[in-house]
């Protein structure tokens, strides 16, 4: 049922495609067409490296519909190396390992399922970094 809603976000979900502002040069994720910093048009696509660090994090015990079978699971604010924060699940790690400042990298995983035969939504999550941060 909500297929188109997820399909149109596939570049963001699978590849972290955001934007660069032509005016002030800031990089934006999620893409928003009007620059968050200078309010100029920002429509040049930019693919983020997927590297960053944990800015804040939580373990969610009381899960919403569609996420019950994952609970408990971790959600974090990730500070991408290009600057923006992104909200994403943490994966491949134990809650006790998480700490603010920890280097992480983007991977593609299953985000949610709608019942036994429902749609499965895939998208970005972040795991402890294997790669080194690149200089941007």
């Amino acid at each position, binding site marked *: 049922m909500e297929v188109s809603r997820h399909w149109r976000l596939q570049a963001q979900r699978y590849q972290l495609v955001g934007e660069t502002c032509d005016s002030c040069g800031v990089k934006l994720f999620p893409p928003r067409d009007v620059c968050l910093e200078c309010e100029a048009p920002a429509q040049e696509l930019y693919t983020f490296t997927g590297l960053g660090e944990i*800015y*804040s994090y939580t*373990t*969610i015990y009381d899960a919403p*519909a569609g996420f019950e079978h994952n609970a408990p699971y971790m959600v974090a604010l990730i500070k991408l190396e290009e600057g923006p924060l992104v*909200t994403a699940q943490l994966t491949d790690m134990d809650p006790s390992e998480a700490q603010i400042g920890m280097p992480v990298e983007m991977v593609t995983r299953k985000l949610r399922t709608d019942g036994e035969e429902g749609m499965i*939504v895939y998208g970005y999550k972040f795991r402890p970094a294997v790669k080194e941060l690149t200089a941007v």
Partner: protein
Amino acid sequence: MNVSIIGLGQTEVKEMWDTSIRHLAWYAIEAALDDAHISKVDALYVGNMLSGELSQQNHLGALVADFAGMRGVEAVTVEAADASGGMALRQAILAVKSGLVETALAVGVEKMTDQTGSAVTAAMAYGLDADYEAMQGLTLAGMGALLMRRYMFEHGLDVADFAGFSVNAHANGAANPLAMFRNRLKPERFASAPLVADPVNLFDMAPAADGAAAVIVTSREKAMDMVPQPVEIAGSAVATDTIALHDRRDVLWLQAAATSVQKALAQAGVTTEEIDLFELHDSFTVLAALSLEAAGFAGRGEGWMLARDGEIGRNGRIPISTFGGLKARGNPMGATGMYQIVEVARQLRGQAGECQVEGAKVGMAQNLGTNGATAVTHILRVAE
């Protein structure tokens, strides 16, 4: 502002399995009409967040007007997540101020218990960014947790350092017959409560429940003739911020809250020192701390100290959550902002019973949508 409050009504806040959304709204409206000694108004604003999702019922303006015996009256739903209640009052004030509407009623109503469990948790997250927050499994509690963790990190705090907010809320709720929780909370129990979204626990997060509250406003001149104790709307302001926490330039600064307070103070011609009580949006203790900072009652990173030092109690420097706040009175999402207004007005009328802040003349209420993406601030004053 030349707009005054002439009627107040509210229901208990709790799980009311035998009461529908239309009945909840009607009970609050009936009480407000009785309080104002009138039977009709010229416009009706219904603050609500979740009736479409939880009760399969939209179109609350017509539904509530119909059920309240006001068929024919102008009526509409106002939605701004958990700021819907405060925003409904804002629309009522604008209507009266415009001169097109003589008397307006704003009612906040939320029926949380038509569904249970994960469906309610999902619905409560509808005020977040659906594509980029909720789709990652973030919940309202998770949002509170991300704020709280970062606040603790930047200011070197433990969970127990937030206990004072919930202890104060429960102490005040214990004196409010309409409150959901009327038990006192021992500070040492705070940090060990079951986790909802680490570090947010059950004693940190306000409980969702059913409830409705209503306020009737009219012009100041008319109010003087109608009721013995009109309460003036001295300031009314709304501001917005990025909907997603991750788009904030500064995650731990509630800019919309700060902007709306500054505007409302300027309208009222008062400073924060003249505010006798502050009904703030304590859906999470960290939001109480951040709201105190944004309003100017504490420096950055110091809002929690007001709770630690007993400054937020009934006799403290800035009493907050005087009837229990969201935490102990309970949080009927789209109705919460209207409870805040009813509570401030009762304080100014001297009708707060055991919850009374002695000599209260000027009170402020601030209703936030989720993380402060919407902030609605009202300043009320005893009519001169």
